[in-house]
């Protein structure tokens, strides 16, 4: 699905825990999600840290949208 968005000329930052699958289907800007049932955060963290992690993931996604890539590239959110 994300490839159709990209074919239409829209850069896509794909947040997914299953980045090997994303790479195999040749998604180009892949942001490592935390886990399949909760890609944008970690419920085992205290609320404030979880929210901070989420902001970091979204920030990384924005950076990915600004990045020049040649093919499938994985972006890892830093530890906030």
């Amino acid at each position, binding site marked *: 699905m994300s490839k159709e968005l990209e074919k239409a000329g829209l850069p896509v930052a794909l947040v997914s*825990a299953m980045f*090997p*699958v994303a790479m195999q289907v040749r998604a180009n800007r892949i942001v490592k999600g935390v*886990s*399949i049932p909760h890609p944008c955060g970690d419920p085992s963290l205290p609320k404030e840290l979880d929210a901070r992690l989420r902001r970091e993931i979204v920030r990384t996604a924005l950076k990915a949208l600004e990045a020049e890539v040649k093919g499938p590239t994985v972006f890892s959110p830093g530890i906030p």
Partner: protein
Amino acid sequence: MKLEIAEFPVKQIRLGRRFNYENQMLEVDETGLIDLVLQDPRISDASIAVAMPGEKTRITGIRDIVEPRYKVSGSGQIFPGILGPIEDVGDGRTHRLSNMTVIAAAEYEGTIRAGTTVQRSAILDMSGPGAEISRFSSLIHLVLNFRIVPGIAELEAHTVIQLAEYKIAHRLAQTTAELSPEKIVTYELGHQNPDLPNVMLLQGCITDPQHVHSGVGYYGLSLRDSMATFLHPNELFDGAVTVDTTRSGRGYYPSTWDWQNHPLVLGLYAAHGRSLNFGGVILQRIRFETYHGKEVGAQNAARLAEAMKADGVLVTWIGGGNAFVDVMFTIRACERRGIKTTLVTYENGGKEGKDSPVLFYVSEADAVVSTGSLDRTLNLPAMDKVIGPYEEIKIFPFPGAAPVSARGPLALEARDVMMGGADIWGQGAWQCTEY
């Protein structure tokens, strides 16, 4: 460990007033069985019916299917940790009533709305196109049709269903306790021939570790975040591995019957000492929810196979979706250690077979047996008789779905709601061929 399985084939079931097995006819004490079930106060009413292959009958509300078995000698009893004490099983002698099953058909609404842990039940047609597909339609079924009292949460509901069906199955098989069998098959793994390759079965099992029942019971204990473990195949014959009955009513999950009659285990046993040495079974938890977990689980299973000196493994799985990624990582991990693999799997591929058959590939998965597809449409005709708790069924499990009449006809998008809709482990000859 040597297990003798004594076979008592059943060609007819009569609902009568006593328990008796003679000339392949099983007579059952109908009221006795119902009383047995109603001993559980969480069951509000129950009835029993028999469904024969070829009848224009549809069974609804199916939660699980089990073959009646009973141990007459050896350690432990069938379904250790559930019906029997937690003890070793897999030796001595076990009686089985073959060609028949007990089906647990229960009315239960559940407390969970959506997600992987929502309760579901399936249907089975005894004739017509649905019967052609399912491995269960050629067996005779004693259907236990009952209702669970309202307000029961999922784990308790599972216990209610499982105990009812297992107790019935146990009582039926016990009918043969003093009888001499027509046939005995002996299962043992001694005598490894050094000239033959060692082959193991690597069985991946999808689990929901957060749910009250993860989906795989091992001696009655839910397998959660565990690493792979070794099983002697005889343990499967005596019911050491069981299912979550609130969620196994679906086309691509095994029933208890499938664990008791695992076609790959039986196939490897048949070949043992002839073309291979059967090295046993590795039970592997799959569908870890992070990439890290999937890779650790995969390599661990491969390492266990290596430690057990496997030359090759048959790999198969239970599940759908991203659990398949675990399976592929496992195949890669085995092949990189020099252990040859062959995968047995069903496919998706959409209604016309033009979509991707599976979710994910690794280049090492170069030996795959296809057991057919879950995805093709199926038009089931109207049936004369419906057995089970539901007069109306929901073909699509989503919040707010509209029910349709169970008597049919039913236009199915895919085979998820049919028991045995996908031939997950290669019991039958279904296959997808490339055109």
